[in-house]
């Protein structure tokens, strides 16, 4: 890096002119590359020894690079369009100006020190010998702007992108290598641990390491892809058995995953949601594995009751296949809420039921028709035909990036009903209808507010 210093010396000469910092308009002509050259030596001179600086070979290199920089400095480059912004930023921000000034002063001071040391080492040294006339002149025109904005924060960042000088540094490479090695060793260690069975799952098969590994994907879907807006999180208690009752939609059960992700991300207690899934999923390879490892559980009365007695946060989708496999024309019309089994379990375990409305998931796939024949043929509970699905193969499985809303309603408490209410069929059907109506009303409210399927 020592070869840069001659250039810095050149700059110093012109920057010393008394009216250097006065001319702000000149700045538009300052090329990034030129700044790069001035910035680098300012930071590196502290390390390099002055003795190395005047080797003719390095001086020649410097000249070549400086010329190249000048050639790149044509006034009509794109960079120019961006520069006034920097100026505005500078004008608007006194803090930036102050820092800018301090850095410029430091740069000037260091350049001065270098020249002094050079003079001391070789009294015959003359700066104009090392820097050709044309470079001096070019630099002279821009010197004030360069000196002024060398410390600008946005400029610095842009410079670092343009010239990754650190990549040539052995320390950087060593550091990179160490990081890579560490990551590799860590991965191998994890793999080894998993291969020798040294990991824990809970009694339902939930595997925290697996969740940590797949969570970025769900976070991406939640935050970026479907840009989910979640409301009413305060209705979910921090602890204790709770039953979320949600509408089901979207052909594939992404709605459960998004409710779970949202609660994990935004709820103060970061509760782990256990969704109950239909009995078709455990027959599918990988799907069954992933569902189990992320803590989801097969839907049946025994599992639901046990989970609630263990004070988990459980989510049910009582519409089942009828809901998830809805046709596009039937979207947001809730199907029958099963036989109210979830109400019976909630009454039995005295768990509050919280209605949840998911809006936006219906439009992720556009199911135009359900083929009974194909469903029977491949053993699916339903087989949607969409504009893309069977025709584009796996590509047709990519959901549309709609905007989602998940609204969590107020809890319906079950502990005010007397003991043994779980056998009261009237009460069960009444409560089932109540929950269903609540969810439908929440969906309708949201749909009224929604202006666009994709933008919300």
């Amino acid at each position, binding site marked *: 890096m020592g070869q840069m210093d001659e250039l810095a010396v050149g700059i110093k000469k012109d920057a010393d002119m008394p009216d250097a910092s006065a001319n702000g308009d000149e700045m538009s002509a300052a090329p990034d590359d030129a700044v790069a050259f001035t910035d680098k030596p300012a930071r590196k001179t502290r390390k390099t020894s002055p003795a190395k600086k005047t080797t003719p070979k390095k001086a020649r290199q410097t000249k070549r690079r400086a010329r190249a920089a000048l050639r790149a400095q044509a006034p009509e480059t794109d960079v120019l369009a961006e520069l006034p912004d920097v100026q505005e930023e500078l004008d608007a921000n006194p803090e930036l100006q102050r820092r800018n000034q301090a850095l410029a002063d430091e740069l000037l001071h260091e350049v001065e020190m270098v020249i002094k040391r050079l003079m001391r080492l070789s009294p015959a040294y003359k700066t104009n010998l090392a820097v050709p006339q044309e470079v001096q002149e070019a630099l002279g025109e821009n010197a004030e702007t360069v000196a002024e904005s060398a410390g600008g924060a946005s400029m610095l960042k842009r410079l670092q992108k343009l010239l990754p000088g650190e990549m040539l540094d052995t320390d950087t490479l060593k550091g990179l290598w160490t990081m890579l090695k560490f990551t590799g060793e860590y991965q191998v260690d994890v793999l080894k641990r998993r291969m020798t*069975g040294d990991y824990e799952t809970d009694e*339902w098969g939930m*595997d925290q390491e697996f969740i940590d590994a797949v969570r970025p994907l769900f976070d991406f879907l939640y935050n970026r892809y479907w840009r989910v807006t979640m409301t009413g999180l305060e209705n979910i208690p921090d602890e204790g058995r709770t039953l979320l009752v949600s509408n089901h939609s979207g052909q594939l059960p992404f709605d459960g995953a998004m409710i779970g992700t949202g609660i994990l991300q935004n709820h103060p207690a970061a509760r782990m949601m256990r969704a109950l899934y239909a009995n078709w999923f*455990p027959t599918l390879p990988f799907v069954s*594995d992933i569902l189990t490892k992320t803590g989801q*559980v097969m839907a049946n009365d025994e599992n639901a009751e046990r989970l609630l007695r263990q004070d988990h946060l459980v989510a049910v989708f009582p519409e089942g296949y009828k809901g998830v496999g809805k046709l596009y024309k039937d979207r947001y019309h809730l199907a029958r809420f099963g036989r109210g089994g979830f109400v019976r379990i909630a009454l039995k375990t005295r768990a509050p039921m919280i209605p949840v409305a998911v809006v936006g998931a219906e439009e992720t796939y556009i199911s135009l028709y359900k083929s009974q024949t194909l469903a029977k043929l491949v053993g699916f509970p339903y087989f949607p035909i969409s504009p893309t699905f069977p025709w584009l193969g796996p590509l047709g499985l990519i959901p549309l990036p709609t905007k989602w809303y998940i609204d969590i309603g107020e809890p319906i408490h079950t502990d005010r009903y007397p003991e043994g209410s779980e056998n009261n069929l009237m009460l069960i059907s009444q409560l089932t209808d109540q929950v269903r109506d609540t969810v439908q009303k929440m969906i309708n409210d949201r749909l009224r507010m929604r202006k666009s399927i994709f933008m919300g």
Partner: protein
Amino acid sequence: MAEKRVIVVTGVAGYWGNRVAARLRDHDDVHVIGIDSETPQENVDGLDFVQADLRNPLLVDFLQEEQVETIIHLKFRETLMPSESAFEENVMGTAKLLGACGEAGVKRVILKSSLMVYGARPDNPMFLREDHPHNGPKKCGYIRDWIEIEKYAESFHDQNPDTILTILRFGHIVGPKADTPMTRFLRDEEAITLLGFDPMMQVIHEDDVVGALVHAAQGEYRGAFNVAPEKGMPLWKTLGLASKLPIPILHPLAYWSVSLGGARLAPMPLDYLRFPCMGDMTRMRDVLQFTPQYTPEETVREFSAQQRVRKLFGKKSRELFEQDRLRDTIQRRKRLREREGERKPARHKSA
């Protein structure tokens, strides 16, 4: 001699009968009679051995004459494919024995069964209760025999409500010496798995099996009990602990090759490698009041340590106490002491 309880253990020539008879001999108030149609290869010291077939009609007279209090029925021949001779021996033998017990007024009958009788199915609850229907695959010899035996046991219970009938349904039994479907599954260096499936399973140590059978002979525990450690483990974790290489096969392919006669591909029906089949241990804990000593991890670790030793020093080698194993043993004894410490004050309180 007269005041001693007489316990008959069937199948003493087999592994389980042998182990249980040997364990029962430690109880001073018990006289153990072993019955089997063949003489045991490994002699239990001082065992009162009677050579008899369970289907012999004179069995009633024998039970009456000896004033047998308890029968632990452990005679069972495991066949992978349904076999008529095994069915005759297992199911009809049990039916005849149960009939004889009813006739002779035996106080207590203990049967050994398996959690596999519930069958591994996608719609199973994660933890099956004892009253769950037996949906196990009929195409597998030993599971079919267990289901049939349980059917006979149920009708026997209806006809003889006074007899204490205890059925212990064990999880997958693993141990350094036992020969069970699960140990056969874990025997080779590689194990067949189904691609994309990793069911939870409950693994119980062979010593705990013997312990539970002996424990059941000491009290009045009516009905069926699931017996296994409460904590299940995923299949892949089990394979990892046993240092086996899982070989995932696409499941239609695996089912297809089994149906084409490759039944020896896996020593248990493939459904058990696909769906969970685990028992709810509430009744074991609260009614049977039995707690397995070994955690599933310890069980599988010990099994694989034993296998390594066998591979190096041949089948006859004695147990080698490795570091892992001693650590597990220390932990286990500590837990046992703690548990007994807990139980004693509780007993004191109730008194």
